[in-house]
Each structure stands twice: as structure tokens, then as C-alpha cells.
């Protein structure tokens, strides 16, 4: 069933930006529920992850290093200085509308900041926070 959901999402993702943040959050939540019965996404846990400081990377100890303390504000890449558009859906409607792109950035940024891949539960919480924060 999980594979089927993933396949459906993958197929729809070929037409780029086919997903909604709600669908992406749900896709991660289903994956998390398969490992942890009764899992539901929490925006509060998502916010805690967003603000947590890790000791993996001095230049980017947390998500806020580039995305600032407020996800509704534009950020700046901690090393290159490049402008980064807001992460919050309320401030940037393009966020979390393309599963492949979302996966790519969780892949890169979790590894770079935390030093490991994020779990489906963390991703689901994170998307929940970014969908709700104003």
C-alpha cells in the first residue's frame, strides 16, 4: 500500500508541481505510520526541529542559519550570501508543491545540517509546521 501511494505520488510528480503541501505531508506521515503506529504529523515538533541546533556544521548549525528565525521571511545562504525565498507556504506558495524537489532538499539539507538523513516523521512534522506558520 505504501509503495502504491509512493508510486501514485511519483507519477503525478512528473507533471511538475502536481502536489499540495497537504499531500506531501500526508505521504511522509503514511511512511512514518508504517514504522510507528498511530503517527500523526505535528507542526509543534516541526518547529522544534526547525530551531534545533546541531553540532555537525559550524557554518550551518541549524535550519535557521540560512532560513532565519522566521520561515515567513526571506533568508540568505550562510556561506554564499545568495537570497533564499521564504520557506513558509503562507509567504511562498511554491513551497512543498513538488515532491521530488522537496525530497531533494530534505536530502541535501538534513545531511548538511544534521549530518544524517531526516526520518519520514521529521519530514512530515516539518512540512506541517511550514504549512501552518504565519
Amino acid at each position, binding site marked *: 500500500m505504501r509503495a502504491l501511494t509512493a508510486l501514485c505520488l511519483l507519477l503525478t510528480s512528473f507533471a511538475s508541481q502536481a502536489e499540495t503541501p497537504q499531500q506531501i505531508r500526508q505521504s511522509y506521515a503514511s511512511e512514518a505510520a508504517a514504522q510507528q503506529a498511530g503517527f500523526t504529523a505535528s507542526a509543534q515538533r516541526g518547529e522544534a526541529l526547525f530551531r534545533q541546533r546541531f553540532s555537525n556544521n559550524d*557554518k550551518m548549525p541549524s535550519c535557521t542559519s540560512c532560513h532565519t528565525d522566521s520561515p515567513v521571511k526571506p533568508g*540568505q*545562504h550562510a*556561506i*554564499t*550570501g*545568495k*537570497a*533564499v525565498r521564504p520557506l513558509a507556504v503562507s509567504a511562498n506558495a511554491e513551497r512543498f508543491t513538488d515532491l521530488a524537489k522537496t525530497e531533494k532538499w530534505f536530502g*541535501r539539507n538534513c*545531511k*548538511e545540517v544534521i549530518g544524517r538523513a531526516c526520518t519520514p516523521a521529521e519530514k512530515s512534522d516539518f512540512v506541517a509546521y511550514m504549512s501552518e506558520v504565519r
Partner: protein
Amino acid sequence: MKPLILTLLLGLALPAFADRMPPPANTPASYKAECSSCHMAFQPALLTANDWRKTMNGLKDHFGTDATVDMPKQQEITSFLERNAGDISKLGSAGEPPRITQTARFIRKHREIPVKYWKDPRIKSAANCEACHRGAAEGNYSERDILIPELR
């Protein structure tokens, strides 16, 4: 008289040409999508083909970041960069690993910039072209269009 006017006009136009570097019209979407999130989509002419190859072969540790892309994109981007790369006689060596900001051309063009400006939080990095050259992504590096007023 006419050739003289033409020569004068050409002389006036040349510095302007030197500051214009529009991105190639056939830039693949993958280049922008994969290479312009953390930094701007640098014009291929800013490095030689050889230095782009080295850069693309070293994405696993791209200045401290894992910037790997999938194989079809790796090939598409590399061949785009190679086809439109700059000339070694104009650029000079880019060092190891190659850096646009270490090419002789870049250094010469920026030699009047005081060190403190590079450290300005609005600039942060010499690779942040758009901090000062607001039209950099479109290829406008004209001194007249520099963003931070005290750098004019």
C-alpha cells in the same frame, strides 16, 4: 574622417561589451534548477572547460557541500558548461579546486575593492555576484549598476 569616428565609437563601446555576459540562450533548465539555489547560475564563460569539468567531477565535495546531481543531469550540465566555457587566455588559472573568484580576470577586475567590503554581511562571499552587480544573473556586470552605493 569616417573611419576615425568609427574607431572612436568602437573604443567607447568596448568597455561596455566587456561587462556584458548574458547567459547562453540554450541554457538547460537543469542548470538553473540544480546550480542556482545556493549561488547564482554563473555564466559558463567565467571558467574554462577544463575547470568546469573538474568542478562537475567534484560535486560530492563542492566547497564543503555535497552538491551531487543525478547522472543524466550531470552529463547535460557538464556538456552545456563545456560548450560555452571561457577562454584560458582571458581568464587565467582558477586555482585548485577551480574558483571563479581566483581567476586572474576576476582578481584584476576587482582589485580596487577594499578587503572590508568582501566581509560586509550584505556581500558575505566573493561568489555572491548579485550582492553588488544586481543584474549579474542576466549578465550585466557594468560598474554603473553596482548596488551598494559606497562601492560605486
